[in-house]
């Protein structure tokens, strides 16, 4: 029976590595491009006066809420050695833009109404409570069902927000597609960075590995080092790509998670 030459197997291995490296680059690079389009669209909107900073004066939701994001979480008691901790995982996320009235410098007061599908960009920081709250949560967190909780962020009167409108305000009414509690431009820049980094690392890493693996003499010491690095690269670039995808998510899709540790003393 015809034996498979190692050169052919090497081509097969390098091909598999390249196909997957290119797909990771295409995936992360595609997301980088998409965020770039969003960035440019926002910049045009800012120039055209559709994206601006405003101060919330009145919220039309209950208790004067202008917008809110809530993330349901499930907490499970950690069973690894060490202090008692509860590990939280996100479940459902809910975003609501109730709208209200905002004071816009140079434009006066605007009534902001949410467009369908409007979203909120904001940071969510879990605030789980004190030592007593931990003691109360621990037994439930130690069951199969886990400890259900919720992290919330409400935007109310007095807060500064960035509002991106679908179109210029008409008769003092503005229809919002995005409300953000932080400047959206740096947010997008930060999100894009890991994506392009992963795309370049994917192609660059594959190129370096290929050069080393093909270093003469084939299957010699340098070539073998290239083969070893190739396997490490193939296995390592996948989590790098997944990390970049996660880091490149928009703020309304970012997970909250978190670990609640029993306070000592």
């Amino acid at each position, binding site marked *: *029976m015809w034996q498979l030459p190692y050169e052919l197997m*090497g081509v097969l291995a390098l091909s598999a590595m390249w196909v*997957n490296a290119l797909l*990771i680059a295409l995936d992360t690079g595609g997301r980088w491009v998409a965020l770039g389009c969003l960035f440019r669209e926002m910049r045009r909107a800012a120039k055209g006066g559709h994206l601006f900073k405003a101060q919330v004066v009145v919220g039309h939701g209950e208790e004067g809420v202008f917008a809110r994001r809530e993330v349901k979480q499930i907490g499970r008691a950690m069973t*690894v050695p060490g202090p008692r901790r509860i*590990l939280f995982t996100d479940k459902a996320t809910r975003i609501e833009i109730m709208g209200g009235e905002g004071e816009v410098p140079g434009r006066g007061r605007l009534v902001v109404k949410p467009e369908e599908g409007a979203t909120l960009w904001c940071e969510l920081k879990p605030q789980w409570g004190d030592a007593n709250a931990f003691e109360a949560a621990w037994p439930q967190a130690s069951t199969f069902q886990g400890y259900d909780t919720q992290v919330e962020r409400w935007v109310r009167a007095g807060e500064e927000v960035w509002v991106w409108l679908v179109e210029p305000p008409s008769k003092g009414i503005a229809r919002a597609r995005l409300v953000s509690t932080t400047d959206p431009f740096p947010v997008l820049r930060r999100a894009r960075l890991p994506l392009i980094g992963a795309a370049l690392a994917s192609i660059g890493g594959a190129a370096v590995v290929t050069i080393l693996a093909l270093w003469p003499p084939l299957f010699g010491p340098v070539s073998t080092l290239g083969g*070893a690095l190739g396997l490490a690269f193939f296995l390592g670039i*996948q989590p790098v790509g997944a990390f970049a995808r996660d880091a490149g998510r928009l703020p309304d899709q970012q997970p909250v998670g978190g670990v609640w540790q029993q306070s000592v003393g």
Partner: protein
Amino acid sequence: MDVEGVEKKDLIPSSTMKSSKRVDTWLLHHRADRRQLGIVGLYITTLFAMYFWPPARNPIVFVLACALSFLNAVVIHNHLHKGIFKSKTLNRLFRCVLSFGALYPASANIASHNLVHHHFDDDGQPDWASPSHVSFRWHLLNLIHFPNVVGPYTFRGVRRWSLTTRQADFRSQYLMEQVFAFGLTGILFIFDFWTTLFFIVMPQLWGARGILRINLIQHDGCDLESEWNHSRNFVGRWFNWIMCNNGYHTIHHNRAGLHCSVLAEKHKEECVGRIDPRLDEPSMLLYLLRTFVFRFSRPKPIRPKGEVAQKFAHGIELAPREERRLDAELEALAE
């Protein structure tokens, strides 16, 4: 729920319950599992044959090893649902062998498959292997790329789950499987790097990545919220003989405790007539060609409408998904 009770009942298929023929052997819970042992034995033999005996490094043995590697991952799936051996120690040792075959710790399946994937995103937590993780317009790229995304998500999820598991020895077992799988592969690397890379690691990774792709193949376009239309079935007879009945996926999701040898029968009893007929594919090969090779766009989701939906809506006693999830967790704890 009594875990022991569930296992005993489910180990005896109804077809064999009618006759007095024993389904177990002195070693195995089920005679049919000899096929699974044969698959793994043949696979490990092909790997070591290629490593130690140069004439075995030919296209036929190499392709066979890749195919068997995928089946080794299928056996991991089955074994982690239902331990093959009566001896718990043997089951644990067998997991190490399977882990070497797939180059990943077999026990990862408990969290990633039994506890998370089987319940999709019912509790609001996304399935680590959800088809929605890939979104290229050309669907073939999704198939190739899928393991690049869901692999890291899966192992990250397993690592998080292992921090909270109450399965007392999960972490030590998981570590043992890694030491065995990576250690043995590492030793082979030391003695012959290139032969190990080409004839051991490439088949190992083919199987490990293939089993991840199955999630896309079996669930893409299905209605994960439905009790019956959440999975695609491949019902070819020979295919299921080789695949240890893993083509019958709807019934496997609905009744994860059933032994794989009874899935064909239970599929006919419970699923046919209740699932959308478009989710019963006669051939996986034809499906793959039709879906990934002969078209460039992703097929539209399959959703029964109007009369069709009505036709498939008639009920059968299925425990609520929360209850089934709890059962799976208890089984994982007991295994």
